[in-house]
């Protein structure tokens, strides 16, 4: 998921890929123009084959399934756009899309705020050991699979879990509750798991960006009397435009297409309060055996993701 976003956000001049190609050509024994391009295809062929068979083919099949009524095993019936009508008329399916957008708040916005603060702070940390320690601590959630995090957080959110213990400790025992089973707060509680998971990733990405900003800018700003906040606003933030673009793209996709954390934490409950498209697709296709309806929702979800991400790509493109 994270692999394609950086390349799409790469500078418009495309100087880096060119150099890469040139180096490759230098190794080949002086091929002609035509043969050169065919050789390129030859190199790409194995990967392309896998891409077509395991990526494009399932996508096309999924689109095809979305026009059928099918239980996943037996014979199927062509039903045209009926499944799409279901997606937009069944309230819980429509709600699931809204929930996914609500999750963007927790998967994208909060991590970005925390990540900017953390990255800017860590730039100031001079000690090598403390810096490494801080980086590891922040990045740790990212290497834990979402499924495992989902399980761990169900314990932390339970009646006697860490979250409620902490609330009791600071005198807020009255608002303690089994968070994931709470009709009003379940989706927000799930959202914070996402925040916890994404913050490390966003921080690391932003820190690498900060590392690329010319240190002389900061020096000059300091000489001009700019404080840390002014430095952050006028140097760090503009310098991080591309990294922020990547972070926003990747985290929005994971918010809209969320599955593992939500499935492990609530399975979409209580009621339909934390139902997200990913889980609705799974339920339709594999629990309720309505493969066509599940496929239709998956197509809609993919289109929504593209519709949200493409304008963002333009917004963060360097001009």
């Amino acid at each position: 998921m994270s692999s394609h976003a950086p390349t799409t956000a790469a500078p418009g001049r495309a100087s880096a890929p060119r150099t890469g190609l040139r180096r490759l050509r230098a190794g080949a024994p002086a091929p002609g123009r035509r043969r050169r391009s065919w050789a390129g295809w030859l190199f790409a062929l194995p990967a392309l084959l896998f891409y077509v068979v395991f990526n494009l083919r399932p996508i096309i099949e999924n689109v095809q399934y979305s026009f059928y009524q099918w239980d996943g095993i037996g014979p199927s019936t062509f039903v045209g756009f009926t499944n799409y009508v279901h997606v937009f008329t069944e309230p819980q399916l429509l709600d699931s899309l809204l929930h996914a957008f609500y999750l963007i708040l927790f998967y994208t916005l909060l991590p970005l705020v925390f990540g900017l603060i953390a990255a800017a702070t860590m730039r100031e940390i001079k000690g090598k050991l403390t810096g490494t320690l801080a980086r590891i601590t922040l990045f740790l959630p990212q290497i834990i699979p979402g499924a495992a995090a989902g399980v761990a957080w169900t314990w932390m959110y339970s009646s006697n879990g860490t979250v409620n213990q902490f609330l009791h400790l600071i005198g807020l025992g009255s608002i303690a509750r089994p968070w994931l089973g709470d009709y009003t707060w379940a989706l927000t509680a799930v959202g914070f798991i996402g925040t916890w998971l994404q913050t490390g990733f966003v921080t690391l990405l932003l820190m690498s960006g900060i590392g690329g900003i010319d240190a002389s800018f900061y020096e000059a700003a300091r000489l001009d009397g700019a404080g840390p906040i002014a430095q952050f606003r006028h140097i760090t933030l503009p310098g991080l435009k591309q990294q922020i673009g990547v972070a926003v793209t990747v985290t929005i996709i994971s918010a809209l297409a969320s599955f593992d954390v939500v499935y492990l934490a609530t399975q979409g409950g209580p009621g339909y309060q934390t139902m997200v498209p990913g889980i609705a697709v799974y339920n339709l296709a594999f629990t309720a055996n309505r493969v066509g309806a599940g496929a239709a929702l998956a197509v809609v979800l993919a289109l929504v993701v593209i519709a949200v991400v493409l304008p963002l790509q333009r917004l963060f493109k360097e001009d």
Partner: protein
Amino acid sequence: MPLLSLPHGVRRRRGAASVTTVVSVLAAISLAACSGPGSSSSTSAAAVTPTAVSTAVGSTPTTLTLFTGAGTKAFSQGLADAFHAKYPAITITLQVEADNNYNTVLPRLLASNSPPDIAAPSDLLQGVKDNLLTNLDPYSQAYGWSQKVPSTILAAGEVNNGVIGSGPLYEAGGAAGPLVGVFYNKSLAAKVGMTQVPATLADLEAVMAKAKSMGITPIVASNGDGLIGHLYDLLLAEYMGPQQLLDVVWHKPGATLDTAGARQATATLADWMKKGYFNSDANAINQDASYGEFASGKGLFMVQGTWITQALPKAFAGHYGIFPLPPKTAGGTVVSMTGNSLAFSIPAHSTHKDAAALFLNFLTTPEAAKVAADNGYPSAVGASATTLSLTMPLTDQIQAGYSEVAAGNGFTQWLQNADTSMTPALTAQLQSLLAGKTTPDAMVSSLQSTYAAALGQ
């Protein structure tokens, strides 16, 4: 997200031709799937009804595969061992799947070319519709099952035109199943002064009210996974009548959930919720957590099935008992959901159907019934009638409760078994009801519309 991100130089010169190549490859691939997904029913129907059957396979060396959920692994292993002891030439290996994946995985395994040889289908109607299960009529005749097994038991495995209860036999074996009832914590029961089995629902409510007033949680339930549904199904059976609920599950024409009984049952559950009879975190926890809460004395009752005796902590044994949910009025019909734990199907694509049928025949024997009883699945056949008391040992309570239900024809089925789409719908509805976010009437209407949609009405 560009569909094809090619290096710039290549794209400029050969772009058009390459894209054409890729598109034609894609077209070729997708053409293969153009005719609509899934098997055509005519091609696989041949595998369903065996033409020549043999019962003389007991001494032919064979290895059979039995599909089982992790929760019933011990039981399945017990059956496999007992069978192997009787027919040493045949070995049964288990194919174990996590319980929450059972319904998802099994239909796909049955449709594959290497299915298990013995399995209890999660959705009998769909399995029959998709030609995945063997018609057992030839074996039933060869072994004489209709003489060995009560016809009401066999009826649960018969399917005719999408309705269970008559027609060709697709699932068969012995007759033993779980009892779903009210588990109680003995020391807490003594504390609230429950000295005898409550005779009516009102008596049970009185006990719960007293427990509540003493600060004891009356019922521990897990509803993160919708398992308060056990209690709900019991209430449905009491208020609708067990046969009426069964008609819905078995898709009997005209059967409906939209009845006064169903609404009363739902209202009763909502009423208990309002009175605070359930643990406050019911909507947040899953079954394992509820076992933990019950076994650590966090609640007086837990409404569950007898299969959980395999899962409750061993140290808790002897500290709990079970009785069926009391009837609405004294002496009324005592109900329980059950499934035949000793009945299995033979997948249509199995290559060892004769040996698998021998196993099904073995399930009608007393040896198999004993394995079932040892695992919390009593049988009504040949049981002596005893009255359930709070002082008798657990296994006797299970047997007495089961016999009591059997005597009054009170056995029924889980509403979820009506259709696979009922499970997520019911879970969500029960969670909403428990959170006070839906009304009993709205819940019944919603469930009925899911049911009607599933039946294509």
